[in-house]
């Protein structure tokens, strides 16, 4: 009978407390890993989502709002700029590509974004361009046609040939239905970017939608800009942000998003603190559950000692048991992590279109489990010391 068997026996004997303690530890491990993975993956992903562009030009206001609106298709537009402003920057020699966007309508909560067809020929992640699923095509300018992002198509049940009426505003309101009827001519392949949540239509369609202000019929909400050289961005930044006062030039896009994470850095810290606290409570529960059972175990320990077990052996058995509970918790913790992280990733994707990968390796998946096992075993030292000090003769009752 090995030490391992003895520990296994003890775990079975105290099955309920073993299970409860392991589950609390599993929750702690799952939370720790989720907090770190969400934090780092979301930071890395959100600051890398650029739709393949370097900058965004829009109305005077917050750069962050501009980026969230034009790149992530979140938030309201800070305002419009004139078509001539778009033409002006498009002709700038430093600009390789300028794509106008117009927003302001939705279909059942999924926003319609008016743009030009050259957006779809541009690599959204540096290499891949938007692809239309077989049987579809990109809309033609001047027609009431729509190309639907993969996520929006799935959630709305839209397919090629379907017709729909857009609704005014960015928030779905059944009373705000436009009279215009659009036909779906294509569904995009998934890009795992915010573009998946968008219904794309020709920009003139959105500008001239029935009920929109005719005076703004040529305005655009933002212009996505690809520069010939990144250094040109500083020159344009100088021109629009420092010398001008009518428009905002958000450059570089990743840096703007980094500012967002800097602003909500305190929230990360709170989450981390909560995760550490849960971990601490879980470790404490290992200590408490074993320590509280020591009185009933002392007779067993005394018997083993009477059979020749050394103090070091019973000490090791208790530490090993604590480590085993922690290890069991860690194993279940991976399942918890998978469940929590998948849910979090699903919610983030639903809300932003950004895809987090729950099952991609992250160093927290090594240090959190190992740390918890080590701390768990360490928590076993206190009851192990109690076991170590067990007086054999006193606990081998009765004395005659």
């Amino acid at each position: 009978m090995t030490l391992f068997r003895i520990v296994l026996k003890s775990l079975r004997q105290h099955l309920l407390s073993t299970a409860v303690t392991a589950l609390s530890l599993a929750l702690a491990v799952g939370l720790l890993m989720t907090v770190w993975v969400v934090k780092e993956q979301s930071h890395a992903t959100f600051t890398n989502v650029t739709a393949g562009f370097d900058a965004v030009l829009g109305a005077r206001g917050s750069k962050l709002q501009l980026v969230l609106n034009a790149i992530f298709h979140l938030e309201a537009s800070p305002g419009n700029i004139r078509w001539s402003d778009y033409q002006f920057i498009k002709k700038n020699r430093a600009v390789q590509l300028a794509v106008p966007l117009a927003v302001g309508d939705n279909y059942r909560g999924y926003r319609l974004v008016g743009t030009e067809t050259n957006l779809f020929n541009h690599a959204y992640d540096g290499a891949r361009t938007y692809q239309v699923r077989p049987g579809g095509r990109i809309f033609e300018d001047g027609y009431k046609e729509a190309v639907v992002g993969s996520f929006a198509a799935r959630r709305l049940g839209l397919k090629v040939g379907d017709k729909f009426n857009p609704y005014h505003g960015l928030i779905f309101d059944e009373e705000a239905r436009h009279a215009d009827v659009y036909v779906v001519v294509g569904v995009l392949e998934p890009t795992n970017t915010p573009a998946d949540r968008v219904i794309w239509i020709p920009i003139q369609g959105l500008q001239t939608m029935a009920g929109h202000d005719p005076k703004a019929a040529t305005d655009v909400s933002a212009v996505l800009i690809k520069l010939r050289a990144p250094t040109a961005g500083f020159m344009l930044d100088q021109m629009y942000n420092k010398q001008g006062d009518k428009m905002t030039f958000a450059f570089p896009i990743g840096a703007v998003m980094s500012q967002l994470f800097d602003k909500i850095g305190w929230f990360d810290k709170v989450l981390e603190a909560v995760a550490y606290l849960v971990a601490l409570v879980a470790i404490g529960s290992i200590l408490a559950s074993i320590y509280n059972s020591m009185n009933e175990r002392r007779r067993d320990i005394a018997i083993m000692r009477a059979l020749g077990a050394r103090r070091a052996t019973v000490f090791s058995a208790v530490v090993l048991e604590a480590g085993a509970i922690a290890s069991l918790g860690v194993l279940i913790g991976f399942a918890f992590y998978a469940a929590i992280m998948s849910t979090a990733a699903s919610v983030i994707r639903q809300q932003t279109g950004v895809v987090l990968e729950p099952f991609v390796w992250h160093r927290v998946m090594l240090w959190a489990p190992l740390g918890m096992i080590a701390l768990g075993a360490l928590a076993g030292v206190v009851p192990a010391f109690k076991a170590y000090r067990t007086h054999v003769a006193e606990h081998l009752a009765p004395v005659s």
Partner: protein
Amino acid sequence: MENRHWRGLGKRVSSPAVPLLEIANLIKAYPSPEGGTHTVVDVPSFSLAEAQQVGLRGESGSGKTTFLNLIAGILKPDSGHIVIDGKAMSDLGEPARDRLRATTIGYIFQTFNLLQGFTCLENVLLGMSFGPGADRGFATALLKRVGLESRLNHYPRQLSTGQQQRVAAARALANRPKLVLADEPTGNLDPRNSRESLRLIREACRENGAALLLVSHDQPVLDQFEDVHALHDINRAALQPGEAEA
């Protein structure tokens, strides 16, 4: 397979002339509630030969459990010498005493002290784990020898008192001990089970070549021994007969 193990035990031949256990000037005292100390064991001299079987008659309060615990190395004497199989306990540190107990001594308790979460077989395996190492075949053979071959995977709570006693006896022999200590081993059994258990313990020790030192206050039990001593004759600190009642 099991028979081979069992026959191996029976081959251990003993010579009564060779002392297995020698005790000299052994003293153990405890602090008394009134202050000062209360001597429980004061044994000037005692010895036991290899394979010898001795019954010690001890009344309640005669210090018999303390005496056996001192021999087993569970308690440390205040003074005196205990030599087992040529090894002086007083020269040994605690780990070495644990090792000696694990390899040389078997202990049968009045309340059996079986681990309730372990099956019969596991209890016996535990008896050898800290000494020679677990030997499933030998453990099974021991349980067969005490008539529990059909109870290998039963837990103590599923056994009768007499059966639990037999598991305890098998466990005491599991580490192939040279000396078996038995503290009122039949104290919780009815007379029929008591006789049967004692017969099994004595036979098993004989086949094993192990010496047996049994303490009891039960005269019918002691009557089965050829060699019986009164503990108060050996232990000067023990109460004389009648003192306990007085």
